[in-house]
């Protein structure tokens, strides 16, 4: 087996991961057969997953960092040309959408890009453009596996989606084209070491997200897509400014070399010079990861078909943002910038959770939860200890799986009950037992032990102890998180006693398959969280920071997680299998003695003038306390201030 891994040439793997999706994206837009299209998607998905696993095995087994220069043609030139092509497209879009913001930012980017490419200064690359280390592998795995699963899930979803829209001409080819392009670009981004390459792929993801959000081409979706585009272009401006500053100061342009600066230690003056460019890159990361005050593009992106949300929130796009910050985190360790990044992240964590409490739209809750979790990841990156970074990486993994799962399940529910409102999901347990079970697993895996997200969160809290402000925000944010998740689960489980027993739910095979894979993935990964963390992530992180072993012993890992898992599993399974209720033991709920009939499906009670009324209990959304429109205002102001302080910190507090 291990031999096999080495027989596959690296070039083939890279082609499979980056180029194949790009190429097949164009094939799909030509193919006019549904069947063939599905086949291609499934094959590509399989190829992506297998290639990423092979790459994983290769890098993990050999513990090596791969630098690789692709041959055949001058790829640098190709990237440069394509970069300007992209800029042209952005400008065209700005014109077509009549958006001044897009135009302005596109033009600024083009100018800076032109300066970088053709300006007086020029930096030589120390290393070839492809740079693969443990972090790239983690990201590739997520993009290639979770992203592929979302792509497969989209097949039945988009068919149903279009059936609903009564389209004459199917837009599925465009959709899948963009999807594949997106996955390829993401892989390209995480596997590149050259900042200009990263920037190039970064801008492709921006473009793809615009296309996907605006897919339905309704007034609303176009509006939100435009917003997503200009906000991400702000980030793009930040990114290219960062690159330009690096070039201005004659600093190395590839990630690999930059990271080495920290390792050697005798180039501290260079590190100090890097702070401003790093701040620019972090800023770009904030926009892409939809941190406050840029959260609104991600919320607007909800108008897109659900697979798009699943993709944006779990494996691609927003993860690109946190990837960028984590990628360079060691460089700005022990600086004011790092502190501020932690605070900005923690602020998004707490405010995202707070705003999620007030939402009843499932996708909006998920969106705020994503913002909140990404905030946590960024806070970890800002805490910038090996343990914190390990927690961040674990969060990226588990969040991708769980969030993808939740979005996909929400999509299934939406297509069944035609509502995304959590209140409408009341009693889903009775009508869609399978989907709601999967959703409950998804939510529990976001929230509680013994699932990975929580373990990572505990590690995050542990590593935040030296930073009291961040710690307090993390503790309170975690508590807020409990509120909206529990409420949501509670809604789904609120059923009535049924005399006719449980309804069987039939899901299309692709839905059931993809959901089952992710759900079991969430559980199994959590089961192995300790070995994964101990054997893979922590050594890699320690290496990343160039420290010998961990600086802190993470006590969270010393807990007997397997026993905890076992006890919880047993306590769930025991009543499920050995303790069944007979129908005579099922009694209707207590309604003060006025319930009607003992086995009805709706909870009704007799009331005024002996008429029947439906008993409804709505979840608490604390409209007065958590009014979105009010809070978003001050949150935006505070977050903007924080970012201003962040840049100030770079100057004042090194």
């Amino acid at each position: 087996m291990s031999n096999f891994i080495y027989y596959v040439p690296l070039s083939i793997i890279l082609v499979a991961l980056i180029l194949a999706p790009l190429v097949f994206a164009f094939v799909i837009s030509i193919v006019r057969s549904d069947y063939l299209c599905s086949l291609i998607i499934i094959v590509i998905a399989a190829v992506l997953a297998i290639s990423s696993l092979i790459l994983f095995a290769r890098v993990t087994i050999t513990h090596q960092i791969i630098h690789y220069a692709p041959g055949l043609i001058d790829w640098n030139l190709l990237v440069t040309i394509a970069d300007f092509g992209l800029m042209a497209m952005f400008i065209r879009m700005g014109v077509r959408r009549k958006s001044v913001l897009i135009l302005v930012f596109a033009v600024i980017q083009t100018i800076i890009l032109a300066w970088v490419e053709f300006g007086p200064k020029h930096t030589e690359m120390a290393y070839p453009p492809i740079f693969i280390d443990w972090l790239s592998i983690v990201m590739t795995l997520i993009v290639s596996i979770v992203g592929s699963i979302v792509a497969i899930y989209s097949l039945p979803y988009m068919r149903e989606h279009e059936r609903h829209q009564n389209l004459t001409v199917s837009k599925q080819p465009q959709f899948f084209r963009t999807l594949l392009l997106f996955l390829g670009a993401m892989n390209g981004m995480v596997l590149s070491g050259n900042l200009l390459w990263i920037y190039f792929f970064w801008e492709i993801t921006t473009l793809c997200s615009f296309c996907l959000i605006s897919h339905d081409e309704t007034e609303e979706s176009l509006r939100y897509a435009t917003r997503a585009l200009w906000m991400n272009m702000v980030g793009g401006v930040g990114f290219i400014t960062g690159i330009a500053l690096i070039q201005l100061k004659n600093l190395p342009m590839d990630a690999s070399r930059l990271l080495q600066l920290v390792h050697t230690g005798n180039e501290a003056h260079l590190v100090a010079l890097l702070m401003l460019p790093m701040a620019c890159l972090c800023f770009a990361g904030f926009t892409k990861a939809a941190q406050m005050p840029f959260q609104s593009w991600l919320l607007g992106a909800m108008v897109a078909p659900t697979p798009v949300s699943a993709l944006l929130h779990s494996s691609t796009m927003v993860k690109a943002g946190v990837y960028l910050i984590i990628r360079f985190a060691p460089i700005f360790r022990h600086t004011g910038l790092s502190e501020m990044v932690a605070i900005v992240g923690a602020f998004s964590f707490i405010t995202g959770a707070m705003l999620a409490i007030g939402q009843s739209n499932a996708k909006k809750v998920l969106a705020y939860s994503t913002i909140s979790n990404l905030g946590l990841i960024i806070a970890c990156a800002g805490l910038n200890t090996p343990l914190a970074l390990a927690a961040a990486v674990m969060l990226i993994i588990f969040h991708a799986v769980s969030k993808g799962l939740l979005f996909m399940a929400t999509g299934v529910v939406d297509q069944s009950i035609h509502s995304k409102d959590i209140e409408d999901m009341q009693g889903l347990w009775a009508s869609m037992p399978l989907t709601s079970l999967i959703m409950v697993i998804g939510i529990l895996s976001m929230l509680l032990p013994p699932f990975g997200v929580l373990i990572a969160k505990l590690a995050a809290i542990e590593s935040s102890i030296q930073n009291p402000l961040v710690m307090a925000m993390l503790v309170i944010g975690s508590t807020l998180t409990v509120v909206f998740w529990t409420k949501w689960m509670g809604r789904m489980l609120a059923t009535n006693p049924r005399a006719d027993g449980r309804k069987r739910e039939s899901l299309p095979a692709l839905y059931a398959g993809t959901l089952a894979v992710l759900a079991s993935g969430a559980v199994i990964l959590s089961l192995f969280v300790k070995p994964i963390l101990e054997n893979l992530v922590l050594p890699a992180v320690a290496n990343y920071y160039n420290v010998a072993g961990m600086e802190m012993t993470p006590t969270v890992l010393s807990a007997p997680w397997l026993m905890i898992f076992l006890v919880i599993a047993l306590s769930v399974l025991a009543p499920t299998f050995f303790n069944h209720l007979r129908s005579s033991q099922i009694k209707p709920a207590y309604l003060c003695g006025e319930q009607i009939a003992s086995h009805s499906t709706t909870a009704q009670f007799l009331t005024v003038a002996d008429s029947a009324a439906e008993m409804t209990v709505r979840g608490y959304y604390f409209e007065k306390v958590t009014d979105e429109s009010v809070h978003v205002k001050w949150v935006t102001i505070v977050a903007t201030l924080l970012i201003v302080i962040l840049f100030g910190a770079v100057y004042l507090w090194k």
Partner: protein
Amino acid sequence: MNILQKSRAKSPWILHYDAGACNGCDIEILACLTPVYDIERFGMVNVGNPKHADVLLVTGTCNKRSARVLKNLYDQMPDPKVVVAVGACALSGGIFHECYNVLQGVDGTVPVDVYVPGCAARPEAIMEGVMMALEKMNQR
């Protein structure tokens, strides 16, 4: 008497439903809770929820609307359960037994195990009634 029976006898949880009383018996039931009578000595607790209750204390004449509620409450109580009818009204309708909206006693609606007479029934009689009901429950 085994330990379960002993525990049942020592932990009667009470559900009180006023099926149409004049309040006389109800306040006497409440008086049972108070320091002077303190039925918690015998483990009796007024739980106010049929799903937790062992003993259903019914007062009042039971009119037709109340009968519906009474039946519902009785059905929701888990076995073993006993019913104690308190006061003349609950036994037969008392002074109201010929009124147009009155059912003569609650035993037409739910099976009554112990009848506590009186208008209003004294707290002592109510306590005695509950204890008799518990004996009956343990004999079943």
